[in-house]
């Protein structure tokens, strides 16, 4: 199998794009740590952090791992198990924290 010449791959991002993504990742991380330390944000800590880390996650996956430019099939190969995993996580949280099982938090486990 010849390497490096696949019709499905589009032009690679430039070094500039990579550096911009890196800068964004740094900024997002600073924001995350900021939200952690600034008391004013504590009310919305969890959703804010989840959004920020999801952004970082997406940037790395889409640009560094090239998913945005590659065949959509790779997005499926990654996305479907990711979706499944998220579903499992949410289900386990619900099952263990008893919020939907009409039991107290101390029970149900």
């Amino acid at each position: 199998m010849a390497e490096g010449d696949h019709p499905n791959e589009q032009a690679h991002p430039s070094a500039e794009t990579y550096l911009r993504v890196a800068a964004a990742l740094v900024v997002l991380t600073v924001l995350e740590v900021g939200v952690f330390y600034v008391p004013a944000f504590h009310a919305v800590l969890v959703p804010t952090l989840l959004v920020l880390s999801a952004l970082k996650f997406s940037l790395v996956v889409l640009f560094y791992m090239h998913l945005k430019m590659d065949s959509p099939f790779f997005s499926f190969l990654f996305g479907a198990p990711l979706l499944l995993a998220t579903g499992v996580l949410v289900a386990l949280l619900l099952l263990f924290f008893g919020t939907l099982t009409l039991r107290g938090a101390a029970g149900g486990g």
Partner: protein
Amino acid sequence: MTHAAATHHTSMGLDSRKIAFWAFIGSECLLFTSLISTYLVYKGRSVVGPSPHEILNIPFTSVSTFDLLMSSLMMVLALAAVQRGDMKWGKIWLFATALLGLVFLGGQVIEFTEFVHKGLTLQTNLFGCTFFVLTGTHGAHVTVGVLWLLTLWVRALQGKLGPGHALTVEITGLYWHFVDVVWIVIFTVVYLIQ
């Protein structure tokens, strides 16, 4: 090297190794999610201390996080260099990635040793076992990645790695970025959301 392309038709027009590796990454999502789910499900259930807010060192771990993020940058620069045939910079960036990976691992060692001194071990409580197994599994993945990167670096030094091996480097990159991405989740879920 290229005659294979003529005889090895692929139904999807995609490289088999790349398909295999993305499938592997999908599989690893389930692995890490099981570990993270356990961490979350057992959060707050430890019967004895120490608890996360007493032990976790956010400034230190933030530096580790930056380190790993920058290593991903090194990795894409390494791939770009190899793809354009610039093996001088290819070697430099590959080594830099591995080095930053080693720094991360060093940070983990320091962090874990600190925790043990402060009374948190695998056996101490639920926080201990879920934390150490989750981050330990991640650390083991980083270790494998560092070995993999150093292997490529040595091959490059020997003149055996070139633009014809761009796919190999790309797949190495996929692994490395995935390990970084898992850390992004762990940093948020374990360290920042306490």
